[in-house]
C-alpha cells in the first residue's frame, strides 16, 4: 500500500470527487489532495495527476447522497466552494467518517472535522446571502442588467437559481472579477460565460457610452433614498460596518462619494 501520495486535480468539484474515487479504489491511506492551481511539491511523496471523470464523480456523489442527510451533502458542497487551503483533506476526512458510520454524522458537533465543515459551510452560506443582497445591477445601453462581484468564496454556482427565478423578465450578467467568469441570463436560460472585460467597464463605471441614459439618475435616486431613510440621532457606524463590511462598499452605489 502506498503511504504517501500527493494527488493533484483540476480544481473542479467533479475533479475532487474523481480524486475521492481514486483514493477509495487504490485504498490510499496517507494522501494530500491539492488543486493544480495551488499544488506544492512535497519531498518524499509521489505526485500524481488525477483525471476528472464525470461518471466516476457521479458515482461518488450518489454514494455520498446515500450516506448523508440533505443538509450533510449540501454542507459538503458549500465547504468545497470555500476554496480554503487544505479543504480537500478536511472533506476527505469528513467523507471517510461518513462512510464509516451507520447514522448521519453531519450534526455530530463534537467531531472536529464535522464542526469545521459546518463552520465553513456557514461562512459560504453567509457570503451567498450577501451576494444576493449586495449585487447592484446597472442597465447597459443594450438592455442588459450588469453587475460585478468579487466574493470571498466561489458562490456564483450557488446564487444562480436565486437570480434566475427572480429576474425572469430581464437579461442580466453577474461577473466574478476575481475568478474571471460570470453568469448570463438571456431570458431563457442561465449560462456560465467568460468575457474580456475592459478595465473601464468594471466597478462603478460612469461611462455614458456603456450605460443607459437613465442609469445614473436611478443610482442618484437610490443614494438619496439611502440618505433620507437614515435616522441621524440613532447613528451607529460600528453596527453599520458590521452589517456591510467595508470590502463590499466599492460595489454599492449608495456608498459611493
Amino acid at each position, binding site marked *: 500500500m502506498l503511504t504517501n501520495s500527493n494527488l493533484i486535480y483540476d480544481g473542479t468539484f467533479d475533479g475532487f470527487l474523481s480524486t475521492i474515487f481514486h483514493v477509495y479504489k487504490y485504498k490510499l491511506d496517507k494522501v494530500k489532495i491539492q488543486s493544480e492551481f495551488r499544488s506544492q511539491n512535497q519531498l518524499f511523496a509521489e505526485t500524481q495527476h488525477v483525471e476528472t471523470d464525470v461518471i466516476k464523480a457521479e458515482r461518488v456523489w450518489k454514494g455520498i447522497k446515500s450516506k448523508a442527510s440533505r443538509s450533510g451533502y449540501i454542507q459538503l458542497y458549500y465547504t468545497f466552494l470555500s476554496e480554503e487551503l487544505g479543504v480537500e483533506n478536511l472533506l476527505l476526512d469528513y467523507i471517510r467518517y461518513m462512510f464509516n458510520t451507520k447514522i448521519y454524522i453531519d450534526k*455530530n458537533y463534537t467531531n472536529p472535522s464535522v464542526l469545521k465543515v459546518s463552520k465553513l459551510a456557514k461562512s459560504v452560506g453567509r457570503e451567498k446571502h450577501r451576494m444576493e443582497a449586495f449585487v447592484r445591477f446597472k442597465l447597459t445601453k443594450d438592455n442588459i442588467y450588469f453587475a460585478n462581484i468579487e466574493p470571498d468564496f466561489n458562490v456564483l454556482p450557488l446564487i444562480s437559481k436565486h437570480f434566475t427565478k427572480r429576474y*425572469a423578465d430581464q437579461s442580466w450578467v453577474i461577473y466574478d472579477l476575481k475568478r474571471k467568469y460570470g453568469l448570463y441570463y438571456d431570458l431563457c436560460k442561465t449560462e456560465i460565460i467568460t468575457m474580456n472585460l475592459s478595465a473601464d467597464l468594471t466597478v462603478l463605471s460612469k461611462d455614458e457610452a456603456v450605460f443607459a441614459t*437613465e442609469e445614473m439618475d*436611478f443610482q442618484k435616486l437610490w443614494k438619496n433614498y439611502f440618505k433620507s*431613510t437614515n435616522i441621524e440621532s*440613532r*447613528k451607529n*457606524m460600528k453596527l453599520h460596518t458590521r452589517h456591510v463590511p467595508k470590502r463590499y462598499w466599492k460595489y454599492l452605489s449608495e456608498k459611493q462619494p
Partner: protein
Amino acid sequence: MSFERIKEKLNILADAAKYDVSCSSSGSTRSNKSKGLGDSSGMGICHSYTEDGRCVSLLKILLTNHCIFDCAYCVTRKSNDIKRAAFKVQEVVELTINFYRRNYIEGLFLSSGIFKNPDYTMERLVAVAKKLRLEENFNGYIHLKSIPGASDELMREAGLYADRLSVNIEIPTKKGLKLLAPDKKREDFIKPMEKVKNEIIQYKNEKKIIKSTPKYAPGGQSTQMIIGATGENDYQIMHTSKFFYKKFNLKRVYYSGYVPISYDSRLPQIGSQVPMLRENRLYQTDWLMRFYGFDVSEILNENNQNLDLDIDPKLGWALRNLHEFPIDVNTADKRMLSRIPGVGMKSVYKILHARRFRQLNWDHLKRIGISLNRAQYFLTCNSKLFEKRDLSPATIKSLILQNSSSKYQKTLSNQLSLFG
C-alpha cells in the same frame, strides 16, 4: 418622469416614513410563476444598512405626508411646519420597479398621511399594489399600511395584493393615546386589524377546499409601539404586546424608541436620548416569548415591572430563579436548555444533536459556541469542574459583568446615571 421632481418628493416622503421600523420581507410565499418580475418565496434579504445600523429591505415611503390628524408624536402631524409632497400612483410604481430591477430592494413598504378621509387614502394605497401586481406582473414583497377607519371592502382588497398589512397602535396604553392623539381611539386601530385577521383565517380555510383560492396577505400582520414617549413601564408594554400577538395572530410587534421630533411639552424634549438600550431589552423579551417558550409574566409582573438595563432579560430571570439551576446539558429537555443564560436557540439544537453521539463537556460546549461567561454558573456537563460554591444572585451578576464588555457600555453608564 422628471428626476429632479421625483428626487425632491422621495427625500421628503422617505424621511417621513423612516420612523416606521418594520422592514421585514420574509414570510411570504409569492413565487414567480409566469416569467414575471420578482419572487418573494425565499427568506427576507437586507440589501443595505443605513448608518444607524438598520436594515434596508424595502423602499419605505409615504404616498403623501399631508395629514388631517394632529398626533403629537408624529412628524407628519397637521400642525407641524414642514414641506409637504405627494406621489402619483404611477410614480411609486415606476420607482419600485426600477429599484427592484437593479436589486436595490425586496419590494415596497407603502404608508401614508391621511388626506381627505380614510377610504380615499386606502383606495390609493390599494391602487399602487394592484397596478404592480396586475399590470407589471410584480411578485416582489408589498407591505401596505391599513388605514384606521378604512372600509371592510377596501381592507379585503388590500390583502389580495399585499404580502403584509400593518396598523401601528403607536402608544401602548389607552391613557397615553388620549393624551397625545385625542382624535384617535384604540378601536380605530383594532377594527382593520380584526378584519384582516378574519380574512386571513377565512382564505386559509377556503384554500384547504379550493386550491385556486388566491393568497390573502401571506406575510400576515404586524404593528408597532413607540417606546418612551409616554410614561408606560416595560410590564405594560409587553403585556399589550402579548395581547396583540394572541388576539390578532400578529407576526411581529415592533418597538420603536421615541426619537424626539417636537417641542410639545407632553413629550420628551428635542435633544433627549433615544432609549435604544431599553428598546433592545424589549426585543430580547419579545424573542424569549416567541421562540424560547417563556410567558411574559415570568419576566415582567406586578413585582418586577421593568427590565434590567445592565443584563439581558433571560439572565435576569435566571438570577431570580436560581432554584431551577444548575441544569445538566446532557439530560435536560429543550425547554430547560433554552432557559440557560448564554445559550441561544441555535446552540440548543446543536446540543440536542451532538449529545446523541457522546456526553458533552466544557470543551464541546465552548466549540459549539455557547457563551460560557454567562452559562457556567447555570449548568453542569460531563466534567467534574463546575461551580460548586453557593453563590448569591448578586455575586453571580457581578462576576458576569466583570468579565463582559457590553456593546452598550457607554449608553449604559449614561442611562443608568439618569436613574441613579
